[in-house]
């Protein structure tokens, strides 16, 4: 068997649209469903621990950027960080939850916005974990020697899905104009933005690079119904034949099948399953908590973190909280883009030292998936 080469993250970039938006102004950007203030908004923000976030919508709800455009900006920033230009790219993997077009894939849209010459591209559509899928593709492209410079990017423009027109006149709003919690909660959970990394077969000549030790992705979809989804009404969300396109776009919209929804009860079960996968990795020696110097864990809510921590402490699976880095409070949960935006902010802190290990964990509630990426500073 041919030996695979090592691959290194040599640049990271992030793009956050506009100025930070504080809690009180968030609903101005999203717009008020049926003209009413959200019932859940404040509680959701407290629960999430998010203070500020960015939107690609202005205070009147007009779009200032596209998802693909934000991704292109992040890819440019990552290439610049690596000391390269987009013309050096040979491979581009792009991830998102919902792109600007239904068809074709997100990577084509990002490539279009970059406007550079011919590239190999790959599109990954899932939720938060799509970032890690794209990273794995870029990593493999470099490891196999097929490309000398690969980029993985991820972007979200969630806020446009939270505009009142997505909910008004649908089964998700009752006669008094109150939006269902499964939809309203997400309106205050997700933010906009994009992030990217550049991978190469050698470390950068100056400064730190991150050698990718492994990328593991585990899906438990065979065991769970959709937990965070769009494209099916609440009641029949597990039946692929009941999804939106069978009834046509107008009927699907009226049934509340187009909006993004989250099942909280199921989420609790999914969280236990994620922790189970993590502990299995610890037990198998794949992850050694004592050897992790920095943990970048993507989580959407500060309060979820508390529930998990006590179990990890009891089972010798815990990485001490002093080693956790998060920018959730200032940028919110940017879905697939979160892990790259977090990594970019972490690298800028200057905290990382040569030889240290960084563990990235990206759980995705979509249909119960979790991704792990171990990086080593060289």
């Amino acid at each position: 068997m041919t030996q695979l080469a090592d691959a290194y993250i040599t640049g990271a970039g992030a793009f956050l649209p506009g100025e930070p938006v504080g809690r009180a102004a968030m609903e101005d950007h999203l717009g008020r469903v049926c003209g009413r203030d959200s019932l859940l908004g404040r509680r959701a923000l407290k629960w999430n621990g998010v203070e500020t976030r960015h939107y690609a919508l202005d205070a009147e709800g007009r779009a200032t950027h596209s998802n693909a455009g934000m991704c292109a900006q992040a890819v440019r920033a990552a290439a610049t960080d690596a000391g390269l230009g987009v013309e050096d790219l040979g491979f581009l993997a792009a991830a998102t939850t919902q792109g600007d077009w239904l068809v074709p894939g997100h990577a084509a849209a990002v490539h279009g916005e970059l406007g550079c010459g011919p590239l190999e591209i790959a599109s990954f559509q899932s939720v938060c974990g799509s970032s890690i899928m794209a990273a794995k593709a870029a990593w493999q492209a470099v490891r196999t020697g097929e490309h000398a410079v690969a980029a993985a990017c991820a972007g979200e423009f969630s806020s446009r899905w939270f505009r009142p027109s997505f909910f008004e006149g649908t089964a998700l709003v009752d006669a008094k104009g109150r939006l269902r919690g499964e939809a309203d909660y997400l309106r205050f959970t997700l933010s906009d933005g994009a992030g990217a990394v550049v991978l190469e077969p050698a470390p950068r000549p100056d400064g730190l690079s991150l050698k990718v030790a492994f990328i593991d992705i585990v899906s438990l979809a065979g065991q769970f119904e959709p937990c965070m989804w769009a494209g099916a009404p609440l009641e029949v969300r597990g039946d692929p034949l009941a999804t939106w396109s069978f009834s046509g776009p107008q009927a699907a919209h009226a049934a509340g099948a187009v909006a993004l929804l989250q099942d909280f009860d199921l989420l609790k079960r999914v969280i236990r399953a994620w922790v189970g996968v993590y502990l299995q990795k610890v037990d198998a020696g794949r992850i050694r908590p004592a050897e992790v110097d920095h943990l970048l864990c993507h989580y959407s809510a500060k309060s979820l973190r508390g529930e998990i921590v006590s179990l990890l402490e009891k089972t010798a699976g815990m990485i001490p909280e002093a080693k956790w880095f998060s920018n959730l409070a200032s940028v919110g949960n940017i879905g697939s883009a979160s892990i790259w935006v977090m990594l970019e902010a972490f690298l800028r802190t200057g905290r990382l030292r040569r030889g240290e290990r960084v563990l990235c964990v990206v759980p995705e509630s979509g249909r119960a998936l979790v991704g792990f990426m171990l990086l080593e500073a060289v």
Partner: protein
Amino acid sequence: MGEGAEVSDVLRRLAVAFAEFEAQLDGTPLIRKLTRGRFTLEDYRAFLANLRQQVKDGALWMSRAASHIDEDHLELRSRLMRHAVTEHRDFRLLEADYVATGGALADIQGAEKNIGSEALSAWMFHEASRPNPFGLLGAMWIIEGLGRIKAGEWGRLVRDRLGLPEEAVRFLLYHGENDTTHMAEFEEMLALVLPDAAVAERIVKTARVTGRLYALQIEEIGA
């Protein structure tokens, strides 16, 4: 895989075993119906009737296990005995729930053990009859974890989906509330027999076997 025999190592392996157990449970036809909104009153009555026989045995195997613990482990023996006392009337609550749903007491009392319950009970009594049956701590982890984590969740689903009053779902709701203090107690019990490599192995193995047989018991209900 699975190194180490400290309390934290065993707890970690038990947490993995529980996740495996939960996946097995979620895959059974009955629980699938419950979590997907297709659960009926008949399903709930069948669930209670099938569970009763095994719940009744719970305190019995625990007592038998206590009687096989030697004098070097008196503290563990005391704890198991106390535990058995706390739980040995729990099956009465199941009967009361069954009656509150409109079922006849004689029906639940006369129900037979299903194939999975037979296997689970036989396994528990077999393990409990061995000298110093410390592996049963793994069985307790599975069964109490079920009470601590799943019972409340199931109880609320049953109540809400079937529109039942609280007094028809007390067994499930009660366990969801009361088992939360048991975790610390469980750690203390583990510390009475660990670290010991052979005991650690046996605890984890017993947890996995118990989980599989418990899921078989649920699988056999109205399937």
